């Protein structure tokens, strides 16, 4: 009997929760704010669904009600992706170690 592919996806999901659990516990508390902004950015990988939706229109009529929602989702996710990664980078650039020569 064949296994439903859903079971495979469920396995990936469950194992990723465990990976997430251990990886996140190892994040240093001082970087919890960047953690939130970067998780924000990566969860916007939902843009792949939005792109498929946006491209679902026909060649002569790009816009239909479904693709319009797709395009809106693309814009929202793009705000998050660019905003999330850039603001994380901006924050991380500020974390500096003590300079030896500085008194």
């Amino acid at each position: 009997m064949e296994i439903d592919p859903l079971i495979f996806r469920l396995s990936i999901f469950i194992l990723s929760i465990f990976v997430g659990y251990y990886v996140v516990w190892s994040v240093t508390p001082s970087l919890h704010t960047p953690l939130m902004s970067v998780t924000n950015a990566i969860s916007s990988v939902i843009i792949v669904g939005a792109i498929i939706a946006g491209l679902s229109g026909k060649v002569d009529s790009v816009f239909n009600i479904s693709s319009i929602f797709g395009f809106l989702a693309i814009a929202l996710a793009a705000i998050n992706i660019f905003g999330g990664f850039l603001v994380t980078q901006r924050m991380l650039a500020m974390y500096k170690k003590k300079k030896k020569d500085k008194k």
Partner: protein
Amino acid sequence: MISANLSAIFYLVSGVLFILALRGLSSPETSRQGNFFGILGMIIAVTVTFLSTGNFSTGFVYVLIFILVGGSIGAFIAYRIPMTAMPELVAGFHSLVGLAAVFVAISAFLNPEAFNLGYPGNIKLGSLIEMSIGAAVGAITFSGSIIAFLKLQGIMSGSPITFKGQHPLNAIILISIIVLIYLLCSTQSSNLFWILLAVSFLIGFLLIIPIGGADMPVVISMLNSYSGWAAAGIGFTLENTALIITGALVGSSGAILSYIMCKGMNRSFFNVILGGFGATDEKSNTSSKEQRPVKSGNADDAAFLMKNASSVIIVPGYGMAVAQAQHALREMVDTLKKNDIKVSYAIHPVAGRMPGHMNVLLAEANVPYDEVFELEEINNDFANADVAFVIGANDVTNPVAKTDPQSPIYGMPVLDVEKCKSVLFVKRSLSPGYAGIDNDLFYKENTLMLFADAKKMTEDITKNL
């Protein structure tokens, strides 16, 4: 056009890169590289999506336009946002993830053929369940984050909004969401889909309004978690590994942060979520409060105390963020260091309005991160320090949490500030903190209250040093 198998492998690669992005955050040195992995993972995921659809016609141009428009708005915000506004920004971003998940779900519901999910009115059962869960969680994330954003931004009052029958009402709505999903799956009716969305938006709103401003660290972490579960739900619908992995990562990340925040307040998750904290306690306490003597001083006194100290511990809190005092604080510390005084910073887990809020502000003010310590790391040092400088924190220093079992904050881990030889407490007035209780620290022999705006006081002290 690339094969489905090849693109699935690439999605897996980007999922792994996202794991590495979070892994990098285990220390500030590796964090920048981690962020780079995250960006790389995103580029791979988007590129593969384009290649797998193989559609580079007019639609493709529009997709690029929307990415550019959204991307420029995002980049603009990212460069302009002040670090003190980070909690609002993160809440706002969560709402966007939620709404994007809702839009993708709507789009998949209206045009399931594009996603290979069946036909309108006859969508595969499994996909429909996943889709409706994704949409419902996305909608809750969206409206909940909007409320969190409004509260943090100060547009909406930070005090809890409660009314009679609130919890039964929420419970009924949550049950009705489950019933709606069941009915939707058995009838495939599009009307039910819209009702489901509307009800989910409503419950997101209702769930957050009773939660007070200082509980926002928990709320933001929780919404972070929700946005992850929403993404995972959509990931199952689209059969996309990158999305499933990311959703699980973000979901557990938010859940862990919520747990850490709750533990930092010694309150259960449900106690926070049910809300109303700090609203009722205030009344009972003000009536029983008697006038007790406090010692208050000025910048000159504070400067004198610090100049004669050999070690100083700084305890920042939300008030520092409000007063934007982090730069002034660092200048003061620089002056102290020139006088060979050892300075370190003590951060309580729930200081500020989001996890790690104080660390970011101090990093912004160029405070080296190896001078900044967490509660467990530094709590024993208070006994050996000469001066504790409390700036904008309150409840997290209250010794009552250790001594009075009647207190609402009893059992909460607090910084042992009172063990210092002397305590300088910068505060506008003697008003109680968020928990609505008096801070015993104000009345201790060795406490000197500095009644002023945090930024101004810090600057004045620097002048007097």
